[in-house]
């Protein structure tokens, strides 16, 4: 294997721009793409067709979970039966979001990971080459154990300094998406490097890697370091299987430098993810709903940051909180974070994607304005005729208390509200 070059080149074992066939180390699909992949798999006319390496395959129910109607329930029933019959890892309703589940001690640094979901780039935060595909590609992986890849060119996102005040990893993510634009990373990989990565907890790295696809990128990689190892071991991963990585002799097509000390709370203003503006510029904008959750910002640390602000206060608008996984839910429960959120007047939904894809549990009505910690504010996505601003959990918390968009930098602990 090639030991120098970008992390993508090292993991895929070939130079950028080349095409390679690789067996995958892990692959996963959810109730939505998995059901489509099942239809594709059943239509394959491959002689002696079988599911290859089922121990590397996961099915995770998160998108419309629990099912909202009989059609969804039937599709989920078929996939549930198929995954069990074929001895895939099956994660039932309530487990949480696929990317979060896979980040909790399953995916390891250096692995090739493919998910049937666009945000599969999230696991790049652990030093895995992880990318998204569609349903038929996933069915092909079930049938053959592998797929083809184009080894991407890489863009370096160079982080320096340290976040301060109420600036959060989400604000960094919105910053680099703005810098690159919605197609600035198309066909490429992002590599997050620089001194600023060392102090960033893995939960924050997951937030940064998660939004790589919003620039069109194939994945968003962090080099696995002692924090990565600690994170994985917390979830029970075997230390002997965790290899640390460091940048060596890699050249980037371009670099974007972000000084974390200068990051301020940001919003992605409707209807583009790359349309980031300081929260203060929209201070006072009236909102109808706040949503906290998703594979971007539904982790325990996100819930805790949100709870630390709303604790002992009452939210002024309907506020929906959806933990990213059962583990995040349990941790929030045992630490009192969930009761702080509940007592502040929020609705707590079961772990999963919640309203992010506009299917259930918090879809907006026409003319309504929402504030969300999710990753996409596309027109009509979370409600036809609605507007959605994207922000960090702290911005969501302060805004929920005021009933209008407010920057956490304006928050004085509730003294003047």
């Amino acid at each position, binding site marked *: 294997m090639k030991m120098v070059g970008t992390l993508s080149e090292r993991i895929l074992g070939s130079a950028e721009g080349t*095409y390679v066939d690789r067996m995958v180390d892990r692959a996963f699909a959810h109730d*939505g*793409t998995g*059901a*489509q992949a099942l*239809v*594709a798999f059943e*239509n*394959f*006319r*491959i002689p002696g067709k079988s599911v290859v390496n089922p121990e590397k395959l996961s099915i995770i129910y998160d998108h*419309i979970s629990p099912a909202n*109607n009989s*059609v*969804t329930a039937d*599709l989920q029933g078929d996939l549930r039966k198929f995954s069990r019959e074929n001895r895939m890892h099956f994660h039932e309703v309530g487990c949480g979001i696929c990317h979060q589940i896979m980040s909790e001690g399953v995916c390891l640094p250096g692995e090739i990971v493919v998910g*049937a*979901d*666009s945000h599969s780039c999230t696991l790049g935060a652990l030093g895995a080459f992880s990318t*998204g*595909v*569609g*349903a*038929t*590609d996933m*069915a*092909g992986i079930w*049938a*053959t154990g592998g797929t*083809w890849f*184009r080894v991407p060119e890489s863009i370096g996102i160079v982080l320096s300094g340290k976040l301060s005040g109420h600036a959060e990893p989400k604000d960094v993510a919105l910053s680099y998406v703005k810098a690159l634009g*919605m*197609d600035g990373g*198309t*066909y490429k990989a992002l590599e997050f490097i620089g001194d600023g990565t060392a102090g960033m907890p893995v939960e924050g790295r997951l937030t940064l890697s998660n939004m790589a696809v919003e620039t*069109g990128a*194939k994945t968003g990689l962090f080099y696995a370091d002692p924090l990565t190892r600690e994170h994985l071991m917390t979830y029970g991963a075997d230390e002997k299987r965790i290899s640390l990585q460091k940048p060596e002799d890699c050249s980037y097509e371009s670099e974007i430098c972000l000084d974390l000390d200068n990051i301020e709370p940001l919003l992605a203003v409707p209807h*583009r993810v790359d349309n980031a503006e300081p929260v203060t510029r929209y201070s006072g904008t009236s909102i109808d709903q706040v949503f906290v959750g998703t594979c971007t910002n539904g982790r325990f640390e996100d819930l805790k940051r949100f709870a630390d602000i709303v604790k002992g206060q009452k939210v002024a608008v309907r506020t929906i909180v959806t933990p990213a996984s059962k583990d995040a839910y349990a941790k929030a429960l045992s630490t009192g974070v969930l009761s702080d959120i509940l007592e502040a007047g929020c609705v707590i939904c079961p772990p999963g994607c919640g309203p992010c*894809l*506009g*299917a259930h549990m918090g879809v907006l009505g026409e003319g309504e304005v929402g504030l969300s910690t999710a990753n*996409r504010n*596309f*027109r*009509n*996505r979370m409600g*036809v005729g609605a507007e959605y601003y994207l922000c960090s959990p702290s911005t969501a918390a302060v805004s929920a208390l005021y009933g209008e968009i407010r920057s956490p930098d304006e928050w004085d602990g509730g003294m003047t509200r």
Partner: protein
Amino acid sequence: MIISGHAVVIGDDVDTDMIIAGRYLRTTDRSIWVEHAFEDYDQRLAGRLNGSVLVAGKNIGCGSSREQAAAALKEAGVRAVVAPSFARIFFRNCVNLGLYVFEADVVCENGDLISFDTDESYVKTSDAVYQAKPLSSRMKEILYAGGLNAYLSGSGEP
């Protein structure tokens, strides 16, 4: 083989939610995707897709990995998608479903006749010929077979 169709022109950064909205994804009836294609973008488009070549702006198919977006176009009778750049999952989805893709910055009007040669990487309008970025040999094999199913099953037309 030369294939042609009338141009249906759309703008930049049209995401897969715009091609087929999340509320229509869970169904076994593929005609629903045809009926509601582009509903949140331009409700007049769905009726014009049959026999068309979709001429999109940059970054077509960004966002969700939903294969229903590519399937909706294929089912609706779109013959090829032409754009200066594609979101990569949508690109793979089109190839896997046997829907021709051409990475080229084509200038044309709605209704113009667009033709392409399935064996060569170019697209023609009445005024100009555009060279598209070549596909990898694997992508060509999958497309020529008619999609990943036929390619893996070894039953595609050579």
